[in-house]
């Protein structure tokens, strides 16, 4: 601490020791049942599984576009030879891949780092990645390129002595790179032994591996830097094989915004479009959330919130996954019996090892209470008192949820296929929308579902058969025993549809139309008869019959399996639905929190004295709140003196009169109690100074929070920075 004492007044920052939190210590505080260890283990295992799955998905998704890019980079300099540039008189263009990545910028970092490793593996060890924040001048850009190329660990994996250690002393110009490249690959040419040693990182890369330069965020580059850099590179394209990859977030026209024709004509661009991030999201939802493999599930509100953040705010799958991870963490942290959220195999062991306290905790779950109330009275007692019986019941119930999951997803996919062609998509266009509805309530009771079934009863034969085919092909994965007959059922239905034409022919004669007897009747009777005629059920054609049968089949299938998860007992163990918590952490609104604190401080201070109807100002509030509330009544410019007067009025009215206040001067100044004339004068001046100081402090605090700022437009005024009144 000695170093901290100094003559000058200043703030000193100390780099504290890095403290790592001890898991035991941290969790014990909020743990009442002592299950945190198990929960932590379950969480870590579950997250590891999900994370590896996500990695696989990511590489699958980008594999195609990466393959294309790799092919492009490889083929662009196939015929390159050293010194070939001089022979060719016409200046060449730099092969450039315009890689349109989409606006989900948070995801790009991961994407580009995978791209770099892919390129290094498959094309060339010479890959440099440039980010706009490092490239504010041509010099920086060049030095960044050169250091990345020269200090590439892949190149010097073995006994190579030629590590140009000090890149600082070297001149940062392209000619340095050229001579380095020529040195490197010419010597390889002459001594095959050495070349072999180099081959460690780069197999079959040809004699002259291209130098790939990636621009991660092209839009943010300074145009003149980029232009100069490209023209420099163009001057050397004959001597070293350069390939550019432009990462473009918006559209290819961004290139033309940045580069004039003189420069863009030096490029030979080819466009590559990365798959949209919604596709990736769909994959994540389908493979992570909508599968019985991972027991952890998101509840309807949290799911909807995460989706909303994705669709309305950033299109970033990375953020979605972060949200999912947070939800998992919070679930296992707050729910003391969440270690039961495990796979079926471990379920029984875990339940039997439950301690009495934990059993009690499970009994308190709302869904279980509802379930017990539904049981016959004799059983109810056992359930509540006998731990053994209850545990058995737990196993049954938890197993039921697992089987429910295994049934749910194949059937849900069928439902999505069936309703996907219906105009206006009452149940939603995407599978995730249907799923979100299912999480919310029993889907078969909704109006939209009924509408869909009605519309399905009117589909044509071709469409219906097409839908059936799709359903059939979606049921490929391992089906649970209950559903194992479903594909064959569908096949049978399809078969019958195919054969229906034959049936129709047989039955047509029966469909004789009753011709209307044209008798002489009055208008009234005719109308009545026609109405009756209409009411009479039209005889159904065989196709219609079969169609109804099919739809009924599906309807009963859906009704059986597409139950809302919240109706199942003990669903809380698997489903996380703390919407408020997630919202607070992932979609915070700092501004409204500050405004809330200022307009109703009792919400945070939990004090009685400040409780009042919104809009009123009481002197017991903190000064900054009073100042804030007063400034709300003002227009764009606030006269400081008027503001002070209002502040003084609010603050002093009670203070002078109220004896109570003076008796507990918790935050007030203790002023003298003698009441001679002189003292009164002194007393008021002290008060005034004191209040003035408080006012000034409140105003500067408001300025700090960004509500007002000093202005030069008018003396003794401050400008308001927010709009809107109370």
């Amino acid at each position, binding site marked *: 601490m000695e170093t901290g004492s100094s003559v000058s007044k200043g703030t000193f920052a100390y780099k504290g020791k890095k403290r790592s939190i001890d898991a035991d210590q941290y969790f014990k505080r909020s743990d009442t049942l002592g299950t945190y260890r198990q929960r932590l283990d379950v969480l870590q295992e579950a997250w590891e599984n999900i994370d590896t799955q996500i990695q696989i998905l990511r590489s699958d998704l980008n594999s195609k576009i990466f393959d294309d890019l790799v092919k492009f980079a490889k083929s662009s300099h196939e015929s390159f030879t050293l010194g070939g540039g001089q022979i060719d008189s016409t200046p060449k263009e730099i092969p450039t891949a315009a890689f349109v990545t989409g606006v989900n910028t948070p995801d790009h970092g991961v994407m580009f780092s995978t791209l770099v490793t892919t390129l290094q593996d498959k094309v060339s060890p010479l890959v440099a990645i440039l980010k706009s924040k490092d490239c504010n001048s041509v010099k920086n850009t060049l030095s960044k390129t050169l250091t990345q190329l020269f200090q590439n660990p892949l190149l010097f994996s073995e006994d190579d002595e030629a590590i140009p250690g000090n890149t600082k002393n070297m001149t940062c110009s392209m000619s340095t790179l050229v001579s380095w490249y020529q040195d490197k690959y010419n010597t390889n040419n002459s001594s095959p032994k050495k070349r072999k040693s180099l081959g460690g990182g780069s197999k079959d890369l040809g004699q002259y591996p291209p130098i790939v330069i990636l621009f991660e965020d092209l839009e943010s580059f300074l145009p003149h830097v980029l232009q100069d850099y490209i023209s420099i590179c163009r001057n050397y394209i004959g001597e070293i094989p350069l390939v550019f990859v432009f990462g473009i977030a918006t559209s290819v026209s961004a290139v033309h915004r940045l580069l004039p024709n003189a420069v863009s004509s030096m490029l030979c661009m080819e466009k590559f479009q990365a798959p949209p991030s919604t596709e990736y999201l769909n994959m994540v939802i389908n493979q992570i959330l909508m599968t019985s493999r991972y027991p952890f599930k998101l509840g309807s509100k949290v799911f909807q919130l995460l989706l909303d953040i994705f669709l309305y705010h*950033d299109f970033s799958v990375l953020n979605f996954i972060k949200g999912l991870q947070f939800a998992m963490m919070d679930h296992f942290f707050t729910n003391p019996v969440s270690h039961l959220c495990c796979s079926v195999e471990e379920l029984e062991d875990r339940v039997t090892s439950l301690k009495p306290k934990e059993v009690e905790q499970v009994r308190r779950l709302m869904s279980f209470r509802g379930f017990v109330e539904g049981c016959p009275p004799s059983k109810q007692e056992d359930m509540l008192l006998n731990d053994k019986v209850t545990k058995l019941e737990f196993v049954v119930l938890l197993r039921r949820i697992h089987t429910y999951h295994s049934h749910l997803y194949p059937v849900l996919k069928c439902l999505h296929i069936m309703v996907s062609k219906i105009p206006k998509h009452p149940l939603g266009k995407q599978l995730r929308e249907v799923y979100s509805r299912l999480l919310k309530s029993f889907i078969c009771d909704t109006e939209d579902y009924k509408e869909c079934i009605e519309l399905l009863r009117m589909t044509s034969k071709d469409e219906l058969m097409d839908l059936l085919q799709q359903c059939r092909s979606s049921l490929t994965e391992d089906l649970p025993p209950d559903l194992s007959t479903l594909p064959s059922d569908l096949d049978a239905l399809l078969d019958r549809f195919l054969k229906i034409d034959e049936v129709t022919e047989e039955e047509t004669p029966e469909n004789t139309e009753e011709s209307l007897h044209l008798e002489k009747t009055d208008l009234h009777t005719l109308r009545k008869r026609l109405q009756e005629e209409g009411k009479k059920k039209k005889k159904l054609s065989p196709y219609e019959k079969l169609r109804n049968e099919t739809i009924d089949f599906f309807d009963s299938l859906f009704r059986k399996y597409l139950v809302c998860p919240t109706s199942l007992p003990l669903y809380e163990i698997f489903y996380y639905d703390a919407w408020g918590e997630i919202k607070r952490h992932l979609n915070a609104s700092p501004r409204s929190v500050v405004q809330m604190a200022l307009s109703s401080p009792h919400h945070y201070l939990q004090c009685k004295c400040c409780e009042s109807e919104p809009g009123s100002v009481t002197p017991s509030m903190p000064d900054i709140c009073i100042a804030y509330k007063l400034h709300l009544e003002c227009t764009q410019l606030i006269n400081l003196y008027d503001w002070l007067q209002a502040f003084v009025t609010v603050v002093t009215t009670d203070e002078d009169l109220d004896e109570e206040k003076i008796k507990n001067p918790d935050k007030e100044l203790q002023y003298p109690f003698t009441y001679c004339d002189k003292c009164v004068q002194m007393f008021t001046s002290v008060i005034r100074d004191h209040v003035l100081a408080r006012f000034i402090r409140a105003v500067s605090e408001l300025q700090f929070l960004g509500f007002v700022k000093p202005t030069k437009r008018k003396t003794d005024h401050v400008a308001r920075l927010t709009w809107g009144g109370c």
Partner: protein
Amino acid sequence: MYIKVLFCVQILSSSLTGHANTATLSKTSTVLHVQTFIIIRLPIRSNSARDMDAGSEPPIADTVSSISESIPCRESQIKLLLSLFGEKRCMTVPAIFAYGHTATGKSAVINSILKTCKLPHVLVNCVECYSSRFLYEAVLNGLYTNNGRQKPETPVKCENMNDFVRLFRHTCMDLHLQNETVYIVIDKAERLREMDTNILPAFLGLQELADGNVCVILLSEIVWEKFRCGTGFQEPFIVQFPDYNKDELLRILVRSAPEGYSAEFYQMYLSLVLSVFHIVCRNLSELQHLAAINFRKYIEPIKNGEATESDSRKLWKNFEPHLKKALQTVYLREVSSTQWERMLEESDAGKMMTQQGLSSRTHVELPYYSKYLLIAAYLASYNPAKSDKKFFSKHSDKHKKSKVIKKQERTNNHMLGPKPFPLDRLMAVFYAIVEGKVAPTANIFMQITSLVSVHLLSQVAGDDQIDVPKYKCLVSLDFIKSVARTVNFDVVRYLYDFV
């Protein structure tokens, strides 16, 4: 010949007066009286030199014809330059300034002259020299490498002009170049103006500063008048490279005829291409690119056996609609030739393809609120702040206001470009147009930043970046219209210019 001698004498005398000056290189004004003399002398000399060439010296005529074989349509420039250069040992003009548009053969002509005549020279591109040190070192090191000598063990280091002149003289001695003219070719010479102020005057007067036979050739795309930003210049000899006309373009392009096709046939093709593109594009390299990527389409009927080479009418009919399409993407270079071919094949299958390709050029997928934020930013940029009340408050007296506005002659805001607006106004407009209730969460503000990072908005520099940040909207009306269409928002109805 005597003029040349006189000229040399003059140079020598000028370098004598200039000796005092070599120490303080930033000012060369003391030798101004000599420069004026040179300026007067130059035209006389060059004229007579040309006369001479035409008459008596066959070797020059040979070189002219051999160079102009590879670079056609530039005979007069080649002749002029060759006569200026004269023989190796003769003194040459101290500086030549060659200018002309892109792809008019400036560098090609000079490079090939220097190479065919085997003159000692060095080529420097100013774009690479982001500091003057690089320029000096590039010239000095280039002298070694370009002339077939072994590179010096340690590359030459040179910090300033004074050192440069000294080292230059030293290098010339080293390479035994005292009796030859050394040529320094500086490409993109307009960049020299942005470097230290003494560089351009010093290079122009290098001959007398270095006291040797050196000629500095400046290449640029802009005229010499734009270089006169200081004092103390020695005027260079100016050579203009004019644009090629249509016939010349044809002559040059025809040289790159692909194998297997007669020159007449290719010329026919080129004249078709030029007839379409010459209106919009006269850049030789761009035309070369266009001719190369479209040729395959032209010969397609021949390959299929539907037409012969002489069937020009049929070929044209097949080719014309395709060229019209290609006209839309001139200068863009967004597709490489292989991709262009692939696109063509697809467009044959479904004719919609190219149209789609064009509109997808500018199409950007955005998150929902980002779209509204962008629309709000556009409205705030192009509507005057006064009109916000009219558009966005629910109870406004529309009739009164519109009358008042109509009386005034108002300028179209779209002509003036986007105006900056404070963050508050953006948020106010945003909340007025967005559907449903949106909490002002951190995510909303983050989106403004990410819109700035993809350059759909830009932050305007102001005195108060934290409290009142100001922005501008950078997108076009068409773009915002297409964005608004996706959220069913009629943006035109809210624009002040279209009411």
